[in-house]
């Protein structure tokens, strides 16, 4: 039996947390404030060393630098908290135990946040389409949101954008039918195979 309850997992809670604006935009704001603090510091340094700026302007630039840099550090802390704590919930069981008897454990518990995102999107997409969640949709959503794959595909001399396009066309052409079960057997096999590979790592 395929024991897979994605909705009742800690990683799904993490996904919900990741949609909160404070976490969703932390990385973006972190980059923006780092850029702003860098620019304001450069301007301040130029004004301070060349003495071309007035004292008030230099003071303002240094104040702006402090505000931007403190904001950058705050968003950095939020981002680190999310990626260290929320995105990696503590597992109560070892993956090796689950690999031995996958039917006794909820395999969805072992997903990383990136895979959980892709699985969540796959399930939602297939629900809307009225089909069983399958490995084609999973593959598409995994490729779509993970730029890390670009490197692997480029090393394999495969055109990732072409593959994505083909997969997109394929999943859009899914025909609605009454699903016999929630997950197609190819989806189940993919998840189980990944579990066995992951526990060997």
């Amino acid at each position: 039996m395929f024991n897979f309850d994605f909705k009742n997992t800690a990683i799904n809670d993490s996904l919900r947390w990741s949609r909160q604006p404070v976490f969703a935009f932390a990385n973006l704001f972190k980059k923006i404030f780092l850029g702003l603090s860098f620019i304001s510091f450069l301007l301040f340094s130029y004004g301070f060393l060349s003495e071309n700026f007035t004292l008030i302007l230099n003071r303002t630039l240094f104040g702006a630098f402090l505000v931007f840099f403190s904001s950058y550090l705050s968003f950095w802390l939020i981002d680190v908290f999310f990626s260290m704590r929320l995105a990696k919930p503590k597992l109560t069981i070892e993956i090796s135990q689950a690999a031995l008897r996958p039917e006794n454990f909820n395999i969805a518990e072992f997903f990383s946040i990136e895979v959980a995102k892709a699985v969540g999107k796959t399930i939602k997409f297939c629900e809307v389409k009225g089909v069983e969640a399958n490995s084609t949709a999973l593959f598409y959503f995994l490729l779509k949101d993970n730029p890390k794959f670009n490197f692997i595909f480029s090393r394999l001399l495969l055109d990732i954008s072409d593959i994505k396009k083909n997969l997109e066309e394929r999943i859009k052409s899914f025909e609605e039918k009454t699903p016999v079960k929630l997950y197609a057997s190819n989806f189940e096999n993919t998840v189980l195979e990944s579990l066995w590979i992951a526990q060997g790592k």
Partner: protein
Amino acid sequence: MEQVIGWYLSEVPKNIIKAWKNFLAFGLDYFSIFLLFKTFFSYWHRYKSSYGRGFDLKRYFEAASFNLISRALGAFVRSIFIVVGIAVEICLVFLGLAVFTGWFLLPFLISGGFLFGVRLLVF
């Protein structure tokens, strides 16, 4: 909130200490400080002169002086690496200490920096 405090005050400091230990262990291993102490007076690059058979005073002094210089050279070069290694380890100790205390001071530094920055901007 409980999770945030637990993470900030317990989980991350533990990780910092772990990383700190790793860096220190790496430094010791990289400079082979203990091994250098153990082999401190060993020959330099195993350059060793044989005393040969029989008793030949000239050859004996030649070999003895060569071996003494080889050992002295070995000890000299090793002592440089030991000093550099220990200096690096001391730097790592202070760096780790700075990171560790900096982590606890970070919220105060952030809020202090922000308020001071606003003060400079507004007043």
